[in-house]
């Protein structure tokens, strides 16, 4: 438990993120470099980095193999898909799609979960009992199936994917934050704040929240990879983002039928997902060990 940290600091522990920044040399360099080149730069500067429009192709240039294969040109280094769209550009824009979907879902789901978790742990009683039953239920709902129902009902869209991911994500944050709030609210500084006349909302925002930030950062990082994987799975099944969005999962689905003639259409987006998720997992593990070792068993 992080109780030592809390005890030695009178008001609240400053986020240890800042302390960790000091240990630059111990950063996991390989995952960070991979992430920068695979996810962050492509996502932020997609329109500058990508050589072509990800949605416009020319049918005369369809299914060109990658540059090093016979028939491939340097014009399209990773080849083209069946509509003649540049694979490299689509993968670059795909990074933006993946990152945006997972960040929005984790951010919104994280906020909902954190607020409900704090309320649950702080007030206890029937509110706690009710919220925790809800958490149990939503953790035992089969995500992919739920996504399929929702998509069958309202059709695939950005909003549908975010909703599904949120339903899946909030409960973990709520459970985590509730557990920590239960421990923190017994501390002296909370009692002192009460005596000083702080309202419940102020106590939660100023005194409890800063103490759970570390765990939240770790959980969020550990989840980005998982959410990217989940989103691409949904898109692959036709229950995620609609066509012609350049989503990695959709691109792999397009390539599945072409596996005999054009292997590159499904291989490269898959490699992009694998390397991204792999480095996110390595980074998450590292962050957990440095910021919040007690999460190891969550």
């Amino acid at each position, binding site marked *: 438990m992080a109780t030592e940290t809390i005890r030695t600091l009178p008001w609240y522990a400053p986020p240890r993120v800042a302390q960790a920044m000091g240990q630059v040399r111990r950063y996991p360099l390989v995952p960070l470099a991979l992430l920068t080149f695979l996810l962050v730069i492509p996502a932020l500067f997609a329109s500058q980095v990508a050589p072509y429009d990800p949605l416009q192709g020319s049918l005369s240039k369809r299914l060109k193999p990658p540059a090093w294969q016979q028939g491939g040109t340097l014009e399209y280094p990773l080849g083209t898909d069946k509509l003649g769209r540049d694979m490299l550009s689509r993968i670059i824009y795909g990074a933006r799609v993946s990152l945006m979907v997972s960040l929005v879902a984790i951010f919104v789901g994280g906020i909902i979960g954190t607020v409900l978790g704090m309320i649950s742990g702080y007030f206890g009683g029937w509110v706690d009992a009710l919220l925790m039953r809800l958490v149990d239920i939503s953790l035992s709902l089969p995500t992919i199936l739920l996504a399929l129902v929702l998509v069958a009902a309202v059709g695939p869209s950005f909003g549908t994917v975010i909703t599904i991911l949120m339903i899946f994500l909030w409960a973990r944050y709520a459970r985590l934050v509730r557990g920590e709030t239960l421990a923190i609210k017994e501390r002296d500084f909370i009692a002192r704040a009460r005596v000083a006349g702080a309202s419940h909302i102020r106590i939660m925002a100023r005194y409890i929240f800063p103490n759970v930030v570390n765990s939240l950062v770790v959980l969020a990082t550990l989840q980005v990879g998982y959410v990217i994987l989940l989103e691409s799975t949904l898109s692959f099944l036709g229950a995620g983002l609609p066509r012609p969005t350049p989503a990695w999962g959709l691109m*792999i689905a397009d390539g599945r039928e072409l596996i005999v003639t054009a292997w590159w259409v499904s291989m490269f987006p898959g490699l992009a997902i694998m390397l991204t998720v792999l480095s996110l997992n390595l980074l998450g593990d590292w962050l957990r060990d440095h910021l919040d070792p007690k999460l190891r068993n969550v």
Partner: protein
Amino acid sequence: MQRYIARRALQSLLTIWVMTLIVFTLARISGNPLDVMLPLEAGPEEYARVSKHWGLDQPLHTQYFIFLSKAVRGDFGDSWKWHGESAMGLVAQRLPATLQLAGFALAISLVIALPIGVLAAVMKGNGWDTAAKIIALLGQSLPPFWLGIVLMWIFAVHLGWFPTSGRGGIQYMILPAITLGWFQVAVVMRLLRSSMLDVLDSEFVKLTRIKGLAEWKVIWKHCLRNASITPLTVFAIIAGGLMTGAVVTESVFSWPGTGQLVVDAVRARDFQVVQAVVIVFAGIFILTNLVVDILYAYLDPRIRYQ
């Protein structure tokens, strides 16, 4: 113990009920079902007649009650896409193929995970341990549907060892089963490794060694037997993984099971079939969870009093 079982059973029922509520609500959000059922030129009196026939003129809570009482009897209406078939009938037809694939995948993953997990613990920090770490890491990072396509590309398209898709003899099952079992291998292996490490450290293992028992017998009989309780606890996760995985794997390999059925139904917006599959799968999933929790509480009394 009875109280624990009762509480868990109640919670499972509640979860299934929430699932039916979600499915029902979504079915109504998706628009007036009559728009799909009736031809475009149907007049208002046609609408009124058919809506009375299907009970759609009733208030929503009555409709929900009718839906629930039919669902309990396994009646989810008829499929729109597959004419003349009931939704539940389609699910029942396809379920054996899915169970067969899932069972085979589970067997394969145990065959791979058991020896590697044990060896990784025994030779901690050694080559086997590193291999186990890499497999675990890849298990978490490889998109399962992509793994399926890669396997298909290498072993079916290039080497021609296995057929690319469809259902038939055992050769049709190998690639899908590996794809489906991959994630399970990582989960079981990691847990087995850590519980083996705990057991190897305990007093009774020292005793068996002092007794002069052969090392292989110490490890594969005495330790493994005690260490395999922990992986049992994640069986629910594994079962859940196998079911969600089945949806993905079946659509990659065109395996004619329930997973393929539900994906086809989603594409055709055949809601009756989707809800039948989802409720059946959710029921299996939640029931497995319940059984495993009870089993675990039976094996480990501390759980009952939490």
